[in-house]
């Protein structure tokens, strides 16, 4: 397999490289990264995937990758691709991924770092007790009936608010108001429903986490003030998605798409890119099912936020007012959405795939209530810093309003496990000032910080390229993992 070492790359700016178009690519590829990251980017297959995505029918502009690019299925992680449905543009489940609407929510608190000193152990233990984590985690809330699940699929985060998890105001601070239009429960399989019924309010495993952080540095005073962030403040982050429900929707529709590829005679370089025209029966069904999974994920994160609040209130013996937990914002980073974008001076409705990429809308946008631009949440890996950034005007023309989503792995799970064998990782992290509670110690080894790119380098590229600006840097104090 050509991993990309031989793919020609042309430098466009210090932070942008281009793969020139060659037949049968329909558009060129473009990768945001620094010169220092280039060797690593070339080494591991993401570039070949950027090139493969450029073959998709109806793709507009460029096949894009953010600096946290790494190898994925079909699409690279960090990939962005927009297709034009009116020109035969396709939707590809591989451009969304198995964890539909995997995303992050950041919560601000009224607590300062000094106030939680000596209480962190209790806080993280309470979170670990209240929020189920790990393989097959279930049972955070009563298993919902199939009928109730229909409402979850249609309403998203609003369903959770209706059940008493959080407040109506939270919806305004959630991408798409926590509910993607077009959800059609009738095209979701019985299997997806079964997998989803018991998993609402659970974190899962892998790179998902719940985290207590402290704001260590403010870069953009104006945006920080609007986001309600200041130095030494305690912030909580939740990173998870649509659990088994979304995984099953993806699995189901990869099968449907494999047949659609034959039916529409689509010529694709990788089976994992299986797709169908947006304007086809298969395309419409997938988008209807995907929206259900996206809404499930928003209901999940909304529920987990409320569980985290209960846990912290209990651990601190504080009143809700003293804790002051508020939703800053919730973003999804695995999704395909129909969005209006300017293409060659003309407004067109495009199907924007973001697979490991975050929407980064500038201030003036109708979908963005923020005066300064939309918050872009970029969590680091376990034990390392995270960033909160703000979307900029330049992202609209350059990346269909997108920015990076995280750190991106550089070391396989097995290599990480070998590297850290025999080390007391939880003890090491504790000495570095990070409390870790995990169901499985193996997960801790796999998720060690050294297995990832430096998230600071990733957000710096986006900052320098002007797609999203750094607002605040967060340092983790305590983490719960699967």
């Amino acid at each position, binding site marked *: 397999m050509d991993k990309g070492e031989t793919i020609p790359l042309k430098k466009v700016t210090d932070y942008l490289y281009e793969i020139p178009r060659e037949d049968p690519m329909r558009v060129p590829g473009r990768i945001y990264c620094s010169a220092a990251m280039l060797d690593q980017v070339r080494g591991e297959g993401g570039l070949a995937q950027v090139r493969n995505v450029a073959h998709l029918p109806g793709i507009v502009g460029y096949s894009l990758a953010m600096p946290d690019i790494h190898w994925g299925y079909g699409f690279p992680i960090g990939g962005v691709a927009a297709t034009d449905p009116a020109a035969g543009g396709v939707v590809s489940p591989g451009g969304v991924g198995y964890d539909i609407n995997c995303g992050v929510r950041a919560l601000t608190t009224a607590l300062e770092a000094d106030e939680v000193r000596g209480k962190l152990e209790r806080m993280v233990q309470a979170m670990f007790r209240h929020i189920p984590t790990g393989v*097959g985690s279930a049972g955070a809330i009563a298993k919902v009936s199939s009928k109730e699940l229909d409402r979850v699929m249609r309403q998203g985060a609003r369903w959770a608010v209706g059940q008493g998890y959080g407040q109506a105001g939270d919806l305004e601070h959630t991408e798409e108001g926590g509910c993607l239009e077009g959800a059609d429960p009738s095209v979701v399989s019985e299997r997806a429903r079964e997998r989803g019924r018991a998993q609402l309010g659970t974190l899962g495993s892998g790179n998902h986490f719940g985290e207590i952080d402290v704001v260590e540095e403010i870069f953009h005073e104006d945006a920080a003030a609007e986001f309600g962030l200041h130095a030494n403040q305690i912030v909580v982050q939740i990173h998870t998605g649509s659990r*088994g429900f979304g995984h099953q929707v993806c699995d189901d529709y990869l099968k449907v798409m*494999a047949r659609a590829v034959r039916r529409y005679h689509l010529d694709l370089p990788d089976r994992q890119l299986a797709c169908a025209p947006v304007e086809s029966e298969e395309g419409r069904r997938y988008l209807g099912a995907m929206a259900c999974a996206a809404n499930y994920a928003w209901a999940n994160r909304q529920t987990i936020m409320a569980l985290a609040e209960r846990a912290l209130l209990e651990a601190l013996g504080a009143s809700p007012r003293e804790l002051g937990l508020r939703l800053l914002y919730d973003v999804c980073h695995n999704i395909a959405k129909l969005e209006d974008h300017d293409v060659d001076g003309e407004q067109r409705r495009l199907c924007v795939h973001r697979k490991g990429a975050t929407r980064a809308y500038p201030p003036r946008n109708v979908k963005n209530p923020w005066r300064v631009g939309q918050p872009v949440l970029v969590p680091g890996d376990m034990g390392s810093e995270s960033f909160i950034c703000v979307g900029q005007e330049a992202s609209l023309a350059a990346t269909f309003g997108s920015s990076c989503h995280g750190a991106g792995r550089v070391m396989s799970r*097995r290599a990480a496990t070998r590297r850290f064998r025999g080390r007391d990782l939880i003890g090491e992290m504790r000495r570095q000032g990070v409390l870790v509670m995990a*169901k499985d110690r193996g997960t801790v080894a796999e998720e060690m910080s050294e297995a990832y790119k430096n998230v600071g380098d990733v957000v710096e590229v986006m900052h320098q390229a002007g797609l999203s600006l750094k607002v605040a840097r967060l340092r983790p104090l305590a983490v719960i993992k699967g």
Partner: protein
Amino acid sequence: MTVEERREPGGEGFEPVDHTADVALRIWAADLEGLFRQAALGLVSFLTDPEQVSAVERHELRIEGIDLEELLVAWLGELLYRFETEQFLLADCRRLRIERQGTAYLLEATVHGERFDPRRHPGGTEIKAATYHGLRILPGETGAYEVTVVLDT
């Protein structure tokens, strides 16, 4: 969980292989049935310690695929589904048959295993799905089968 290589008499087995983003399993066997059996055992070894799983209950499974690759993805998908919805962990498959039907394939199996019990079964890596990435099931040079399947975690 640290998944170890496993070799069985009769020249079949599986081993985990390096993969940056996720985990992958290389599986080999003398025939297709052995290959699918090893794939199932390999999958379970990511979910928990397979040594701790006993054969106390039994299920009859029937899986279809338009080709062998889809059949393998569907087979592993079925086991993941049973794990998430019924907490069923496979200990072994005592009967497994793959039959060609026109251009498609049918797999029938009797699987044995038990319910996940967090007190006895250590939690491992959550697997979202078996993927089609680079998935090709081909007879090797000696007529034996080999495949590498990437699992999304």
